[in-house]
């Protein structure tokens, strides 16, 4: 059992928790994830790590309430326990001193972007963070990003905070201004990652995308998370979650993420009605 040590609401339906998980914290690296199961009847879901502390033995996660499991997890408070957490899973992000690195995150991709951005900064990169959110109310981790980035470009879809527009527009502008970029890491909605990859392909910039497919075991056993990369079948849980963004079949990933839409809707409605 894994105890929740602290909890905060960062934005509507976006929550931060600190959980005691010493074995995960011990060897966690940026870009890696965990799989958790809330209780005996729970499903296994992957969540990428935001922060961790080896000495204190905890990990920090940020999640958005979208389905039954995340809504239910949102009701867990300090002192409550998550039944199972396994990790760290997946390959860590390839961190090196690329020169000028840009991290592009969308929505709740921000915490993963933060973990990677921090490591890129520590590795000596000049770090630019482009973080996009739906609107002012949904802006998260601004201070955290501010502390580690050389340049922080926040944008909102509706223009209610900072500038108006998508991260793609911001990146394109940034490149048009003549900024030299050696490496891009992108994480967020699949459509955003796809469009970011299209931009950086034109500029021939090495780009990694952190993928978020459906998983069950998270250890390479089931193939639920399979994605097509460069025409080959890859398992995001063990071969990823990061892949060369220019090789990923994002359209397929988008369809695969909808596989259980109907069931997820049913489970959520039932849960919100107090069914289980």
């Amino acid at each position, binding site marked *: 059992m894994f105890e929740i040590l602290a909890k905060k609401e960062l934005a509507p339906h976006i929550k931060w928790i600190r959980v005691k998980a010493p074995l995960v914290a011990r060897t966690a690296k940026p870009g890696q994830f965990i799989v958790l199961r809330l209780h005996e009847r*729970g499903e296994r879901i992957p969540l990428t790590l935001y922060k961790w502390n080896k000495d204190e033995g905890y990990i920090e996660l940020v999640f958005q309430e979208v389905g039954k499991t995340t809504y239910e997890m949102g009701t867990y408070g300090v002192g409550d326990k998550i039944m199972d957490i*396994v990790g760290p899973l997946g390959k860590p992000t390839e961190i090196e001193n690329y020169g000028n690195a840009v991290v592009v995150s969308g929505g709740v991709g921000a915490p993963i972007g933060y973990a990677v951005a921090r490591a890129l900064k520590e590795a000596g990169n000049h770090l630019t963070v482009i973080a996009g959110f739906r609107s002012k109310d949904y802006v998260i981790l601004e201070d955290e990003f501010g502390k580690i980035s050389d340049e922080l470009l926040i944008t909102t879809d509706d223009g209610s905070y900072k500038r108006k527009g998508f991260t793609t527009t911001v990146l394109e502008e940034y490149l048009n201004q003549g900024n030299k970029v050696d490496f891009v890491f992108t994480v967020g909605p699949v459509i955003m990652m796809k469009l970011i990859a299209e931009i950086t392909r034109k500029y021939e910039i090495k780009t990694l995308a952190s993928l978020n497919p459906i998983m*069950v075991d998270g*250890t*390479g*056993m089931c*193939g639920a998370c399979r994605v097509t990369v460069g025409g080959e079948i890859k398992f995001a849980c063990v071969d990823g979650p990061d892949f060369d963004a220019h090789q990923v079949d994002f359209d397929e990933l988008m369809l695969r993420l909808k596989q259980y839409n109907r069931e997820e809707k049913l*489970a959520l409605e039932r849960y919100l009605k107090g069914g289980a």
Partner: protein
Amino acid sequence: MAKQIKKQRIKVPEQDPVARIHNFNEVALGYTWDLAVEEASRCLKCPYSYAPCIKGCPVNVNIPGFIQKILERDIKGALEVIHTTNSLPGITGRVCPQEEQCEMNCVMGKLGDKINIGKLERFVADEARKQGIYPDIPQVEKKGKKVAIVGSGPSGLTAAADLAKMGYDVTMYEALHEGGGVLIYGIPEFRLPKEIVRYELKFLKMLGVKIVTNVVIGKTFSLYELLDEYDAVFLGTGAGTPKFLNLPGVNLNGIYSANEFLTRINLMKAYQFPEYDTPITKGKRLAVIGAGNVAMDAARSALRIGYEEVYIVYRRTREYMTAREEEIKHAEEEGVKFMFLVSPIEFIGDENGNVKVLKLIMNELGEPDSSGRRRPVPIPGTEFGLEVDAVVFAIGQKPNKVLYQEVPELKTTKWGTLIVDEKYRTTMRGVFAGGDAVRGEATVVLAMGDGKKAAKAIDEYLNGEPWPEEIKPANFW
């Protein structure tokens, strides 16, 4: 005058096929006391030194010995005889291919039906469980040495039990949230109720084995760290990575590996969605590609979650199917349809990415391949489509590399299986391996046999047997 020996096997009551495809309860209901005694009375009681059944058993259970105890109606005695060499009788009694092992050589076969050893073993385990009986725990002197077991499937469980009985301090690591490996996530409830696996795991804990779940060796701990902390390590990581055919449309929704399909149903209880949170694609028609035991498990599970028509799609003919006869028979009784001499060539989906059509091509049998089986050869112009709502790939698994990819000392074969010698020693000092991680894909009881022999080899190593300079690869098939 000698009593007349019954030539026919005493039948095992089974759930009616029409009823059972609507539930996940066990198909074979098992013997009652009276039926078990009647079947046991047919045994000719070959002497221990001769009994061909014992020789046919990968873990050498003293079969005439426990059958004698059944005749004496001594359940604990029977259980203890079995446990001398096999700590998992409730499991082996159900999933062993007895017809190719103990029962194959049964002397009774010359006079009539062979003894139903599997069902008698199962009876002993079930009756003991019903009465809450465990074998006495042997009091052994502690060796003061520690062994780590990686993976809690059949080979690991067996190695763990034997090492614990010898007095070693054993810790078993499992990546999933529950111990048992393929016995929990793979084999369906209707063939092996999970309650039985849990009962037999409990006995391991009584022996002092520590089972640590939610730990992935290679991620949470490295193999090097285990070697620092333990005197020896056994790798029973199985063959957990599913194979797919890289055909157009293979990643459409509704196309599963058997591992995923069965894990969702068995481990995650998707058949009880939404009471349990894990969903699974439902529909009217499902096709399973493959014809082994796993394919039968997937097909029969599909019927139970509500598919009306389930097809086994196999590229060869019935006689080449690798599934056990009993499994094929059960699948047929339940209404699974078999389509032979066809191979998948493409999957076609709808606008939402859900699979709708499985495109197949017909084959004829050509020359034998390296396995001696006649190779299927596609017949041009015979392509056709089968409308489906889901497809399950049951064409085999390969070993999971997560553990070894960062351990260059561990050498593997070209199939990705670990190289070991006849004493289950890998190319890394102090590290042993067995089961599917070494064999590729085999059976539960062969993996158990490996675990048993590896435990003996580990004991010898920890008693000072030198590690060889060079590992001479053994052949396991």
